[in-house]
């Protein structure tokens, strides 16, 4: 088999928001021979040439997949960071057990994997009154994690660190993303910011940082191409206070009592107006600053600063309100995709 064609990439979580976009970014790019997307449900974005495998992340499947496709690069985007989207049990299954199985498959003696990229989150730093203003990649968190999502991410990262020690020949990249804002992504923060009023904790105005969704995909693509080794924070530079975030988004602050803010907001959360998971409550008290110099030093350039990401989000939100949802929704049709990929009737350009 010819190995000189380029990198063979496996992307986990290809059916999720991030995985799908990473597949799109790498699909057909120079230096990439093929991209294989792995997901537990149908993909939500259109793949041009990339293959999609509908499978869960059990060890036996991953081991066979890695062996059969001889991938040299794994981009692990299937990490749940939004605790409102899954229960704590599901988060543990995906973040910890899924990662463990993937690492076991990638570290098997017959494995061809030489580069592993893991999409983690700034949640591993937590949010506490004892925190430094800025977390560098090697700054330890101040308190032990108390929320399920933080616990599972911290545990997943420690599994990755074990993998690094056991497999010195494999380049491992961990990206820790700040809270993401963008036109397409939906998180508790984007939900709250798109209302006329937005929850805050009375008397607290923390400094927060954001990364724009396009920069997330660009960062994942950047480290995959450059084969950067180590851990990197990914966040638009320049923290800003939560009150300013609300002002840029044109929403008013709804101050919640500092003693039990989640209890006070519970009825509106129940009605689906807001989301306030415990890790967001902590963020609305103490914020989180992330040092961006390491990835900038490696040559990555952000399209948006933190404030710029907020402004871009507000712009796209106003556009959506003004113009309605114009974006065409993609529905995965297995037979149609198979036809376009494999049928001799489909005319292909000669360079492909």
């Amino acid at each position, binding site marked *: 088999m010819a190995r000189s064609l380029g990198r063979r990439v496996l992307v986990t979580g290809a059916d999720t928001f991030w995985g799908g976009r990473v597949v799109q970014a790498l699909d057909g790019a120079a230096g990439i021979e093929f991209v294989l997307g792995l997901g537990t449900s149908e993909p939500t974005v259109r793949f041009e040439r990339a293959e999609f495998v509908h499978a869960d992340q059990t060890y036996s499947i991953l081991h066979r997949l890695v062996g059969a496709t001889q991938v040299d690069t794994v981009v692990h985007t299937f990490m749940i960071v939004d605790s409102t989207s899954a229960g704590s049990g599901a988060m543990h299954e995906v973040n910890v057990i899924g990662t463990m199985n993937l690492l076991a498959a990638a570290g098997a003696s017959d494995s061809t994997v030489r580069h592993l990229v893991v999409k983690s989150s700034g949640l591993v730093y937590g949010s506490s*009154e004892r925190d430094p*203003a*800025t977390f560098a990649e090697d700054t330890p968190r101040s308190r032990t994690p108390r929320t399920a999502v933080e616990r599972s991410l911290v545990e997943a990262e420690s599994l990755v660190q074990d993998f690094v020690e056991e497999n010195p020949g494999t380049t491992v990249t961990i990206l820790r993303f700040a809270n993401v804002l963008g036109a397409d992504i939906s998180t508790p923060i984007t939900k709250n910011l798109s209302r006329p009023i937005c929850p805050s904790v009375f008397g607290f105005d923390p*400094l927060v940082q954001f990364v724009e969704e396009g920069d997330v995909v660009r960062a994942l693509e950047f480290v995959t191409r450059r084969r950067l080794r180590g851990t990197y924070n990914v966040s638009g530079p320049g923290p*800003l206070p939560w009150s300013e975030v609300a*002002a*840029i988004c044109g929403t008013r602050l709804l101050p919640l009592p500092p003693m039990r803010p989640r209890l006070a907001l519970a009825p509106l959360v129940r009605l689906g107006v807001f989301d306030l998971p415990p890790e967001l409550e902590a963020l609305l008290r103490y914020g989180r600053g992330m040092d961006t110099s390491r990835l900038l030093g490696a040559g990555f350039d952000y399209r948006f600063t933190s404030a710029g990401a907020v402004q871009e989000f507000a712009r796209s939100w106003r556009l959506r309100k003004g113009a309605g949802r114009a974006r065409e929704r993609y529905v995965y049709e297995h037979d149609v995709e198979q036809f376009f990929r494999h049928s001799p009737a489909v005319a292909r350009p000669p360079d492909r």
Partner: protein
Amino acid sequence: MPIRLTAQVATEGAGGDDARRSDVDGWGRSERVRTFVRRLSGPLYARWFRAEWEGLEKVPETGGALLIGNHAGAIPMDAPVIMHGIETELGRPVYGLADYFFRTVPVLGTLWSRAGGVPARPDNAYRLLHDEGRLVLAFPEGIKGPSKTYAERYQLRRFGRGGFVEIAMRAGVPVVPIATIGSEETMPVLLQVPQLASALRLPHFPITANMLVMGPLGILVPFPAKMRLRVLDPITFDVPPDQERYRKSRVMEESERVRERLQAALYDMLANRRSIWFG
């Protein structure tokens, strides 16, 4: 009292980023809030405490420096007076390190942060001093300074574990001791009620002379003691910066030396003081 602002400070929060709406910098400090605070504390500084400096020229005009002071009075007035004095006289912003306890208090914590307060964490101090070349004010006695009773006035407490020396060594900046007299008499602590402190989750709960004289008003209002401040010669350490660690014995030795010099300066200033109220 003229309020001078350096142009650099006023624009730095924006960082060329036109999406920004406020001037809050990466530490939570806002020069606009500082200006407002200085306007309020101006009369207190000039008329109430009649603060007088000696050796202010020893504070570096550029680059990072760690200002070290003695801490006294139930609500220590030395911190705002030093910050106000240096910012108005030298036009350089001062970041004041304090216990992270302030962060946990609603409203007060936010105001404290906007007014230049920063949680006393080694990482924070290092970034301010080394990366940004700022003036940083710290009180190595910590809460032990303000919580000591009036009977122990001007007796410096232990200087922590000498962490401030280590940070200055690592950041490669001088330590500038500032001796302050008068702050003890602004709010003398008669006795401590630790039970109330723990019940209210406060760092300490003193009964002050102010409370006896002024009643409930005395919880916040300081006596108009004359405050004198003396900047001592900056101390530089001839060690290479950015080391992983420094010899603990050397750190403790230097920490003790700073403490002795500060204590000697306090005794000297007290020996020359004729009146608590008029200096």
